[in-house]
């Protein structure tokens, strides 16, 4: 059964690699539409990663170290996007931040800000699905790095900010890197929430996954080439997170 399980995971990848148009790969990836999608994807995913870092670090800290009311509920809320179908997330974003949404109507009316069908909207969708990966990773690390090391630093005369700067953050950096890599990869691969909330506009919201889906109908070879790019990126993400997934002991 284990072999069958591995087969289920490996077979699609083997099919992808076997059917890949290796000889024309350079030409396919050099197309303007592909490069444009790559640019949109990188912009959206990197901006989303930045937002995830800024919002996720304090959130992970609070969940790991602060006694807040309804903490279990907050944690469940944080993890929810990991199990929620992305299209549901996109629909929820639409009804919350769309032009006639709960908050979106006020953004539109007061600040003339519309998120739907914009790159900013794609970033919001990516943050929504990627944030949990970062928060869960960093929160876990904050729990395991523990208070003891910080307590000891305090007994050496280090005030709280020094402890944060010289002990907590340096020890947390590997987990932050791993969490950020996972979140970035999730943002890069985001499809359902993006197409629902931000649409599929070339040069604005058409990311690599959306371009791949689009190409499947008209140009399967281009779709295969784009899929290879996303596969390569996913494998690259395993490098900074290898200790998490491939324990040496």
């Amino acid at each position, binding site marked *: 059964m284990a072999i069958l399980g591995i087969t289920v995971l490996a077979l699609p990848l083997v099919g992808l690699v076997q059917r890949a148009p290796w000889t024309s790969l350079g030409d396919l990836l050099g197309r303007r539409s592909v490069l444009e999608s790559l640019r949109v994807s990188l912009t959206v995913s990197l901006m989303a990663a930045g937002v995830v870092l800024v919002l996720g670090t304090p959130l992970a800290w609070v969940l790991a170290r602060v006694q807040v009311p309804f903490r279990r509920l907050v944690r469940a809320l944080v993890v929810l996007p990991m199990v929620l179908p992305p299209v549901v997330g996109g629909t929820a974003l639409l009804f919350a931040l769309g032009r006639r949404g709960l908050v979106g109507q006020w953004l539109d009316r007061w600040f003339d800000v519309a998120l739907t069908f914009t790159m900013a909207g794609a970033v919001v969708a990516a943050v929504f699905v990627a944030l949990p990966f970062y928060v869960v990773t960093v929160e876990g690390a904050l729990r395991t790095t523990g208070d*003891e*090391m910080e*307590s*000891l*630093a*305090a*007994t*050496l*005369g*280090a*005030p*709280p900010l*020094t*402890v944060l700067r*010289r*002990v907590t953050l*340096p*020890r947390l950096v590997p987990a932050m890197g791993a969490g950020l890599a996972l979140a970035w990869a999730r943002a890069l691969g985001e499809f359902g929430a993006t197409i629902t909330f931000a649409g599929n506009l070339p040069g604005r919201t058409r990311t690599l996954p959306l371009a791949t889906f689009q190409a499947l109908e008209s140009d399967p070879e281009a779709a295969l080439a784009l899929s290879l790019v996303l596969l390569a990126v996913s494998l690259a993400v395993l490098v900074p997170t290898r200790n998490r997934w491939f324990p040496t002991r």
Partner: protein
Amino acid sequence: MSDSSVDAPTTATTFPILGTVGTPPAVDLAGYATVGDLTLDLRLKVEPGELVAVVGPNGAGKSTLLRLLAGLVQLNAGTLALGGRTVDDGTTRGFVPPHLRRVGWVPQDRLLFDHLTVAANVGFSPQATNDRVTTLLDALDLKALANRHPGECSGGQAQRVAVARALAAEPDVLLLDEPSTALDAGSRQRIHALLVDPGPGGRQRPTILLVTHDPAEATGLADRVVELSSGRIAEGLQP
């Protein structure tokens, strides 16, 4: 805010062992603390410069006593004064946090900063001067390891780093939790020598509380031995 210092009036007292008239005890503890299933009911005075060995069975509360003095556990009732300054008042909830106590703590599991070199570990404290760090690295035979990381050190070397790091902070009170356990004879000897005279250059020895299971260590090093049993201190044992 938990950093409000509670300054109790300093009472001039005469101490039979090392204290002098008008000098407050280095440690003056009278209070209760509950940690998990363990309730500590503690009365303990330690004079400046005194080395007190704390012995007792496992689970008696020896490590918790050290954590209480370091500010990592709070009193539920009673007071703790260090050098005449009340740092924990279980009644008023006045509490001086660990970084303002000048108490060095060497826990059983050392807790070295594995992202820092040995030299950076020893020099971690804001109070640690370069000269002091160099002197301690030399005294504990750690100079050759200065640029290594704790992961590259043996158990004995790591223990010496932990002791050096605590001493570099120039604490008024040094708390050592079984510092010689599982050490080779050489490492043990170096640490013992430093405890007897931890201040190269004529520096005054800090007050030391040494938790140990080794009777020879307790009687050989300590000015006084106190026994802790089920969270209570039985004073008066002489080395």
